[in-house]
């Protein structure tokens, strides 16, 4: 059992991070506002989790100008997708094991 717990990625233990990654897995890119609406969190909360995922290089950030405003979009990196899939696999295995 210990072995399985080790396989879970600590970075995805937090629900908001899990949510961010889930959305980025099925969309080429998602912007900040959409993520905020989707996860129903405050700006600051979302930003801090995004920064954490960015530091681990699980997500990439793209900033562009739309008129005068900046629009920030995020996408999952190859590493992020791989890690997330490992995490999912570990979750599934653990559920199966305890059946």
């Amino acid at each position, binding site marked *: 059992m210990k072995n399985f717990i080790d396989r879970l990625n600590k970075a995805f233990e937090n629900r908001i991070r899990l*949510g961010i990654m*889930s959305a980025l897995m*099925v969309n080429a890119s998602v912007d900040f506002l959409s993520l905020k609406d989707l996860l129903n969190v405050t700006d600051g909360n979302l930003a801090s989790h995004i920064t954490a995922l960015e530091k681990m290089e699980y997500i990439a950030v793209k900033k562009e100008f739309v008129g005068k405003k900046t629009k920030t979009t995020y996408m999952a990196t190859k590493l992020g997708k791989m890690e997330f899939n490992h995490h999912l696999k570990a979750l599934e295995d*653990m559920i199966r094991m305890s059946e």
Partner: protein
Amino acid sequence: MNQKSEHLQQISEIKSIMERSSCFISLSGLSGVFAGFCALAGAAAFYVYINQKIGYGYTELAGRFRVELDVDFFTFCFADAGITLFLAIAFGIFFTTRKAKADGLKIWDATALRFLINLFIPLATGGIFCLILLFHFGWFGIIPPCTLIFYGLSLLNASKYTLDEIRWLGISEIVLGLIGCLYIGYGVTLWAIGFGVLHIIYGLIMYIRYEAVPKEKKYW
């Protein structure tokens, strides 16, 4: 085991977010049901008009390759189609907004936009194509099956961004449309089946699957 239910919950959260962020899931089955009734009423009105005003039945009208452009007839056709479409869309917006509100979701977001764009590109192509057939070639009989085919293709295209049932509805419409091309005289009947009966059936299926049962508790 407590830990197990925690993991199950995490998986269901992941699934829910993936669905909500990539698909337009607020589409209500009831909008399909009401759109279906509108289509049946529209087709019935057309049928009655044809039999009373034109003097010969639909089969003969559709069979003529060139229909004389009678202003009264086309005014009626466009008014009938316009009112039917308007009512169907109005019901669609009403029930879909209602469902989104009940689920605590936003009606207008990136998924809704993506769904509509992918629906309307083939749909508008089909609409323009039908107008060309009608006014350039005067071939009236081919219009009902053509609308079925293009509507089916539009649904098929947009189904990637919404509930799975739409894909099967699209395929059914395409099949009906192709049959209609072979049996031009049954155009209005097949149109009524495609836009009326199929909408009602699929709408009911979607309503029973997604709306009639109480939603599971939300975690977010």
